[in-house]
């Protein structure tokens, strides 16, 4: 009976005591590893954040660049369009023959029209004041027709080009001298 008592005692106090110490030691290890993991996590997070930030910065940079490029492109597009509209070709007196300068300008205009297949244009033919009204209307028409034929030769569909003659009716420079006349002997381009 007495023996039994000790056994019971040993079982109820000592073994759980062992158990306690064992479990106690185990817990400390566990805590230690958790701490290191946390630090690890924090570092990773930081790195991740940094990477994210860098990425974002990179992206923003890229976006800005892209935007700038787009802007540049738009500007270039606008410039090309402006040039198309603003750059007149000029002629000698009583002539509808295209000068080399006029041909260079027309080549740019043809390129623009080929780059913008949804656009159509009207070519206005103009003359200086020195001729007579009727003949100048015919001459203005010939000038516009010369420009149109050149553009068509470069591949622009004729259906996208209209001609209209204003003869001597709408001088861009109202002066009565050679400088004004030279400006007024022209073809002017308008996007429809």
């Amino acid at each position, binding site marked *: 009976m007495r023996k039994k008592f000790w056994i019971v005692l040993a079982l109820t106090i000592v073994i759980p005591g062992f158990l306690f110490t064992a479990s106690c030691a185990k817990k400390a290890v566990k805590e230690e590893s958790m701490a290191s993991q946390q630090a690890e996590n924090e570092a990773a997070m930081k790195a991740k954040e940094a990477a994210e930030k860098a990425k974002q910065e990179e992206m923003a940079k890229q976006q800005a660049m892209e935007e700038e490029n787009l802007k540049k492109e738009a500007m270039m597009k606008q410039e090309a369009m402006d040039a198309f509209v603003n750059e007149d070709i000029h002629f000698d007196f*009583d002539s509808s023959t295209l000068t080399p300068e006029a041909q260079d300008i027309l080549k740019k205009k043809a390129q623009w029209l080929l780059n913008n297949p949804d656009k159509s244009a009207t070519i206005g033919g103009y003359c200086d004041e*020195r*001729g*007579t*009204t*009727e*003949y100048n*209307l*015919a*001459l203005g*028409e*010939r000038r516009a*027709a010369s420009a149109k034929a050149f553009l068509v030769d470069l591949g622009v569909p004729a259906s996208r080009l209209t*001609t*209209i*003659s*204003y003869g001597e*009716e709408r001088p861009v420079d109202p002066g009565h001298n050679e400088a004004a006349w030279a400006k007024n002997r022209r073809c002017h381009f308008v996007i429809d």
Partner: protein
Amino acid sequence: MKNYWIKLFGLTLTLSILAAPRVYSAGYDYIDITNPFLKKIPIAVPFFKPISTDTATDQLSKKASDLLAETLAFTGYFEILNRKAFLIGPGSDAAVANVNFHNWTSIGAELLVTGAVLIENNMIEMELRLYDTFKEKLLVGKRYKGYIDDQRKIIRRFCDEAIYALTGRRGIFDTEIAFISTSSGVKQLYICDFDGYNPRRITHTNSITLMPAWSSDGKWIAYTSYARGKPDLYIKLLKEKRGTVISKTGLNITPAWQPNEFALAATLSFSGDPEIYLLTGAGKIIKRLTYNKGIDVSPAWSPDGKKIAFVSRRSGTPQIYIKDLGTGQVNRLTFQGNYNTQPSWSPRGDKLAYSGMENGLNNIFLIGIDGKGPIQLTNNEGDNEAPSWSPDGNLIVFSSTREGPSKIYVMTSYGTDQRKLLDMKGQQSEPEWSPRMTDR
């Protein structure tokens, strides 16, 4: 117009009853039409005698006599004698009945116009007489009755009779001149009387309007307008404001009515090249008249309708050519100068007026249809363009920048008596003389 004259005629008693045996009917030797402006005929037009005794009659008779003198002088045939040189006072009885011709021959008057004016119940009665002072003969005697406002018409009617008695040809006193003016800010079509009186606006758009052309009955007018954004040809019946628009691709310009037909020649460029076509008055193409790569423009009909003159660049510069529509043959007419445009065929058929450019300025020239000449009519007075003949062939109307802005001028077909036709705001150009309107 026609109805009006019938009414006026109904009220008119011609004085020929009174003077029938003495009316000089074959008086065509007064004015040598081969050169009527070499020697102007001195004519006396004393103030008309007021019959009714009130200030209105008094004023009107003075005004009417001035107007009659100006109207006759417009032809370029006459030298109007200064009234200060007259030997008898204004309103003297002797100026009307029992003319003492010596009073007039001694001051050099070869012709004399006398008049008497009566105003009664807002109606005016005018008795007008034209005398040959040397032959002591009554050439024309007429009495007219109408409303007071009709005095100008009465005077023009009498002048027409006077010119007919003196030349054997009808005058131009019922004609009109179409022209382009920028008075409204943009080129629009206007019409005024032959002497610049009563300019009125015909088109009412904000679009460039150019190149009016009269049909030979004076009822239709064709012109180019940008009203639809491009140069289209408008053919308009003046009285009823109806008509047609020719709106083919490209140019629809330079209309010229075929004499005595409801058809016109015009320049169209729908083929890609300005060419001249014959069209019906309704705008349908009858046939193509020119076949030449490059500019062909500005047709002008010969009075018999058998030929057209036109401008072509086929020789490298703008020159005037004549095409015989029967044979199809084309001959170059102008060889002098590098820029000859705007042909206008004389009503007698023997000459063309045109604009020739030298050193950047145009002048008016005449050339025989055989190429004889050319004779330069304007010189050193700005840019002179767009000649158009009066239907009697005696006068040419044109535009000139001699005073700065372009205005309309008239001269005789010999280049004499150049004067401004009318004073208007803005610039005036492209005058086009109408045919006689009697039959309109």
